């Protein structure tokens, strides 16, 4: 019980009244200054008193002191908790077509049968009681496979195509065993012809199948750019809504361990402008499986970015079926002082930095944006409205990456809520060098994140 109460309070936007009141002892200040100084983690005693009384009111056990922030462990709820005021990100999907799959998009394309409000009031979430079931532990690549297999079992139109996905089981073993189970046509080993087999997947999708196209490395999809941009992205529109392209394009990308420049690319920055596609990035076994399933069920073309270094992450995931939302971000660690937006592998660098930051007395809020296109401006916005400071940590290159777009989107939408310019930490604008030392300096490392937060929260 108590953790959830804390949760509600953390999500509660501290009203302006407290911001202004806290400067009572220090004399009159303008509201801007008040906001600035209130962001200093050294809370004014008045605030602490107020908060203490609130917490005592709900029977919280934690005593507040003026020298420490809240014990983060208490608030480090897993991403699978649903927030009452937000549409749950954890659903048990009933069998049958989704609400959107009503064929009305043929001629109209209007979202006539949408969930009427993405912010559901109360959602009966039987799966939230995962505590009752043990769950099972597995590695991220196994979680992807599990999701994929479940979907293939559920719908015979779901098929896989790519290089070495069949007999070899996938270069990262995501499709291991599937060809034995489903046959060589349903798990298709293609020749090395990315543009053509991606196009083939698109043609198959237009004629009723639901292919998952694997790029052995996301970088190889540069060869498929023609098909991804023109046909994946645009065909639904240029056909006036007559054909849908329910493909999932997935594969490992990102900077690995000395894989060299061409195998270390971040294609999310190149694809992000393509209209008509969605992009998601998984980062944990839990969200990998959920996003894989969601991507397969979506009628839109979805590009699922996996990361070469994350395939062996282990986590315990629920036994019961679940599908995550493609458009939602994931709250990794709620906090008060700064919003750190990240995705994929950088999430782990951020969490590592967060440990250091917490020891230094900061309280960062970490959000894994997960949906790279479109951005979940609700989760992000709520966070910014609370913390007023944003740090983006990404693996894309500085120029034209996801961080660049996110910076623009936040500035446009939430400019008034910012107390400081947005800081975006990205990889260097260099081809990823082979040498280990150089490669390390190419991507953002935890000490840089710590330094950036300290700078931001000064």
């Amino acid at each position, binding site marked *: 019980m108590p953790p959830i109460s804390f949760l509600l309070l953390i999500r509660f936007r501290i009203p302006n009244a407290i911001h202004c009141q806290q400067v009572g002892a220090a004399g009159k200040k303008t509201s801007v200054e008040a906001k600035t100084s209130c962001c200093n983690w050294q809370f004014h005693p008045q605030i602490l008193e107020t908060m203490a009384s609130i917490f005592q009111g709900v029977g919280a056990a934690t005593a507040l002191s003026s020298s420490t922030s809240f014990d983060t462990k208490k608030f480090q709820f897993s991403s699978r908790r649903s927030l009452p005021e937000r*549409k749950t990100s954890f659903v048990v999907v009933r069998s049958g077509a989704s609400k959107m799959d009503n064929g009305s998009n043929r001629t109209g394309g209007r979202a006539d049968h949408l969930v009427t409000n993405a912010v559901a009031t109360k959602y009966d979430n039987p799966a939230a009681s995962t505590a009752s079931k043990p769950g099972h532990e597995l590695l991220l690549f196994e979680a992807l496979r599990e999701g994929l297999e479940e979907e293939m079992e559920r719908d015979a139109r779901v098929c896989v195509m790519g290089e070495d996905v069949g007999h070899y089981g996938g270069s990262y073993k995501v499709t291991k065993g599937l060809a034995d189970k489903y046959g060589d046509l349903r798990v298709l080993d293609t020749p090395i012809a990315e543009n053509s087999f991606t196009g*083939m997947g698109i*043609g*198959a999708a237009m004629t009723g199948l639901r292919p998952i196209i694997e790029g052995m490395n996301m970088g190889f999809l540069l060869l498929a750019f023609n098909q991804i941009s023109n046909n994946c992205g645009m065909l639904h529109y240029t056909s006036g809504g007559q*054909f849908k392209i329910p493909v999932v394009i997935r594969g490992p990308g990102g900077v690995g361990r000395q894989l060299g420049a061409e195998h270390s690319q971040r294609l999310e920055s190149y694809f992000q402008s393509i209209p008509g596609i969605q992009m998601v990035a998984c980062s944990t076994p839990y969200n990998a499986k959920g996003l894989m399933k969601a991507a397969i069920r*979506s009628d839109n073309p979805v590009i699922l970015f996996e990361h070469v270094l994350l395939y062996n992450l282990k986590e315990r995931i629920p036994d019961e079926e679940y599908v995550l939302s493609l458009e939602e971000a994931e709250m990794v660690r709620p906090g008060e002082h700064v919003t750190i937006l990240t995705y994929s592998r950088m999430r782990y660098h951020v969490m590592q930095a967060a440990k250091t930051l917490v020891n230094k007395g900061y309280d960062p809020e970490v959000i894994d944006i997960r949906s790279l*296109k479109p951005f979940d401006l609700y989760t992000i916005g709520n966070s910014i409205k609370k913390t007023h400071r944003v740090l983006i940590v990404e693996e894309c290159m500085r120029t034209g990456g996801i961080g660049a777009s996110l910076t623009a989107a936040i500035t446009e939408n939430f400019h008034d809520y910012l107390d400081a310019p947005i800081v975006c930490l990205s990889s260097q604008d260099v081809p990823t060098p082979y040498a280990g030392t150089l490669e390390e300096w190419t991507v953002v490392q935890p000490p840089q994140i710590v330094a950036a937060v300290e700078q931001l929260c000064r």
Partner: protein
Amino acid sequence: MAFAGIKVIQPLALHASSSDPYNRAAKSIATPSPFLGSTRTLRINQSLPIALSRPASSIVAAVSDVFKEKKLKSTSDLLLTKEEGLEVYEDMILGRAFEDMCAQMYYRGKMFGFVHLYNGQEAVSSGFIKLLKKEDSVVSTYRDHVHALSKGVPARAVMSELFGKKTGCCRGQGGSMHMFSAEHNVLGGFAFIGEGIPVATGAAFSSKYRREVLKQADCDHVTLAFFGDGTCNNGQFFECLNMAALWKLPIIFVVENNLWAIGMSHLRSTSDPEIWKKGPAFGMPGVHVDGMDVLKVREVAKEAIGRARRGEGPTLVECETYRFRGHSLADPDELRDPAEKARYAARDPITGLKKYLIENKLATEADLKAIEKKIDEVVEEAVEFADESPAPSRSQLLENVFADPRGFGIGPDGSYRCEDPKFTEGTAQLCFDVEMKNLMLNMHLQG
């Protein structure tokens, strides 16, 4: 008796002198076509043996036996019935009249952009597509109006699309180069050459998948991929030939070799201009056919489609054809030799079929005139319909970007963007805050 003394059977040599009795016979089968300005002549060898059985490496360029026999026999056996003849004729007349009307409308400012007309190539479209079922798929390029018409898309829908009206087959969103029809299985309409071929391969894959994985045993849908000579130097062409032959996909690759890729002569861009030869290199039959003769095209098409339906795999058909107009309506068409154009104009497929129908008493002049008149009316009506149709409204702007519009994401207020009432009105700013949005809307309304 002149042949009695010959012991050694010479192989057919198409360029030997015409006094050689052996080659007189050969010449009646082969149709050599020297091209102006070329340093090589295309050797059209139509009597190579067929080897359609496995293994793939033994397949050589082939022409169907049926076709060859028919050529050698007298024309007492007709190649089609009266009904079929009139159907094909009507289709070709529709194609021609429609394209001529497009040119008119373009110069009158009713349609814009790049418009690529099909005049002269009607035999290929009618010859192939009229043999298809509704469930079979057609994939084309930017020169797609007539393919769509042949497949059954109503002329008014195509004309409307060209005019950019909301009643167009793609709601005005595709235009000349993107003709699609889910009902008639026209899978596009592609602006970049070669990018439709993988899509066609995918449609053929679907067909095979349905039969073998989904166990729909009666699924024998075939796919036709139409593209030009320029495309045959593109990677996607070769990659798809490989995959189609590898998996024996029910697809026919139809090359409309009109010898010119805008201003680039086929002979200047291709190391080996005989495209049909590229089929056997990948393990499928390659056929060359006179694309100005709809009956010849039809015969080859029957064989190729039959092969595909029986699950015997793909075929590459090279149709030697010609476009009477420029590459597009913006092309001044200055590079092609008038003599070449005249030569092909003399082989106009419509005139050819008309001659055949009349000579073989399959139709009278009056029948054909009636068809032409009917088509004129159809095309006129299509133009009227398109003229009177409304242009797409603002609200259509953001529709159809996603099949599932939740793909636009969640806005700052927590609801999905597409739930925003301003969304379908096309005035929703996808990145702006609510207040900003209202401000913009007000500014817009105030003009």
